[in-house]
């Protein structure tokens, strides 16, 4: 196994609710190595979204350890977390989350603004990743002028532009038809072959089978963690 990108030990997360403290994650431990393609599965309310937020450094655990890329995330300040989200992690959301007033190129180049890359380099790198997802000819279109599948490709390009080690995708195909979903998953597989670690949240078995490993959550705990059966994966 290659060096671990993610090492999680005894992770707890509770939320304050009107009914008292609600434990969303209980005693979760998981390691993900570089180059893995992991699907996080489970019914809604199982804690998988909370887990993704913690993985993505958007939230801090109540207890436990989370080491990302050799850094203990629990000890980091807000600016350092922002830096991790900027450099180390690329996000892909269910709802694409492109900024509507910006062209595709500007959307893709946005993360580079926050790490101070000069305009020319921003444009060049944005063009490169747009080409990679096959949308270079639409660089100057606006997000509302293209299809959902294309929007998700742009979102993936945005996630890639800062050359992250890890891509976190939260139900990336949830808003897409099955044909388009296949295309997006094929793109993820290709990125994974290039060495990018991918963690994908989904509740669809069809989508999860594109991953090499499936982790199942239930009631805030991991209930199963196994490789995707090879026969299914090959189909």
């Amino acid at each position: 196994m290659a060096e671990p990108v993610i090492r999680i030990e005894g992770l707890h997360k509770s939320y304050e609710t009107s009914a008292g403290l609600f434990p969303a994650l209980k005693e979760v431990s998981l390691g993900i190595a570089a180059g893995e393609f992991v699907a996080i599965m489970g019914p809604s309310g199982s804690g998988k979204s909370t887990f993704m937020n913690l993985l993505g450094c958007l939230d801090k655990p109540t207890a436990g350890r989370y080491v990302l890329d050799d850094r203990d995330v629990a000890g980091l300040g807000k600016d350092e977390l922002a830096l991790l989200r900027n450099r180390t992690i690329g996000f892909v959301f269910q709802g694409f989350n492109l900024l509507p007033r910006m062209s595709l190129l500007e959307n893709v180049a946005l993360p580079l603004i926050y790490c101070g890359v000069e305009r020319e380099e921003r444009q060049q790198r944005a063009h490169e990743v747009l080409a990679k997802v096959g949308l270079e000819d639409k660089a100057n279109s606006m997000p509302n002028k293209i299809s959902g599948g294309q929007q998700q490709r742009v979102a993936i390009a945005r996630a890639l532009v800062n050359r992250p080690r890890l891509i976190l995708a939260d139900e990336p195909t949830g808003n897409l038809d099955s044909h388009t979903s296949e295309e997006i998953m094929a793109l993820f597989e290709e990125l994974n072959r290039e060495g990018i670690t991918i963690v994908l949240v989904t509740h669809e078995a069809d989508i999860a089978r594109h991953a090499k490993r499936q982790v199942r959550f239930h009631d805030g705990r991991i209930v199963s963690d196994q490789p995707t059966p090879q026969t299914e994966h090959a189909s």
Partner: protein
Amino acid sequence: MIFAMLGEAWRAMGANRLRTMLTMLGMVIGVGAVVLMMSIGQGAQYAIKQTIAAMGSNLFILHSGSTTSGGARTGSGGNFTLTVGDAEAVAELPGVQTVAPMHPGNAQIVYGPNNWNTSVTGTTPGFLEARSWQVTSGAAFTDSDVRSATRVALIGKTAAENLFGDENPVGKTIRIRQSPFVILGTLAAKGQSMDGRDQDDTLLIPLTTAQRQVFGSQFPGSVRLIMVQATTQEAMPAVEKSMTELLRQRHRIREGMDNDFFLRNLTAVADSAEESTRTMSLLLGAIASVSLLVGGIGIMNIMLVSVTERTREIGIRMAIGARERDILLQFLLEAIIISVAGCFIGLLLGIGGALLVNALTGTMVIISGSSAVVAFGVAATVGIFFGFYPARKAAQLDPIEALRYQ
């Protein structure tokens, strides 16, 4: 990075043009009002200064005092207690620049078929010096004219226009109460006095001529008024004191008795007029600043709405690596751009308004660079001040909450 952010701020403002413009309007009106009010206030101050300069500087007026006869007091000037001798004695005091005894009155003056009632003042050449009044054509009368009581006159611009029309008055002969007078020269225009009188509707003649031939006097050598000019403003209190002492002595007024003359400090009147216009213009500025404040609150209001509307966008930006200060800067920049742009437009409108007021009413306006700079600085400060709270609110959003926001 700052350019990229400026571009984004511009785009965000462009996305909701009407709202941006309405927000800006608050600043436009605020700054416009401040600039306009300051220009008018400063114009008024300048006009007052001009009036004071025209009146002559560091002046005192001595009036003859009142007498009491049968219990009724006559009021100032009722008793001709001042004399030419008093004037000459005052002239010798240290700190006194010029002294001009005066005998004012009104008379009908006649030139050919025209006649005109105007103020006729008998005085000495020192009067022109004290009032810093120029003779534009011809020449002033001299001390020898005063000594020999010659029938000569200097005519003010308004009186000259009414009597002579387009003719040059110099050398012409007019009649005052049947006596012929030769016009020696014309006086420079002075405009209105502080109390709104037309100072140019006047005729100046030698003091002795006025007393002996035009108005008559109670006894030879008596005068109603003496104008005294001090050398400097600083010397005025000392001159006032020594003059009072001298006159009491000359008039043999015992300790504890009232003066038989009145002493008025004209500069003090002018100073208080200037002071009141200054207060007025400050007040106008202060009132206008309130609208600037209201404009600032408008910016805050809209920025808060904008932050709420763009919560999801903020969440996305945070997810892809924006730090708190990046979000803060983004929203702060928008507020500053709105207020500075509004300020710039307001500046132009304020200047335009001031010029319009000047063109329509003739009111003097002064557009000073300093008031423009102040207005600009205040507007930028207002933008930062009122933009900071919404921007901080945006920056401190929880990224997960923000991303979930619909």
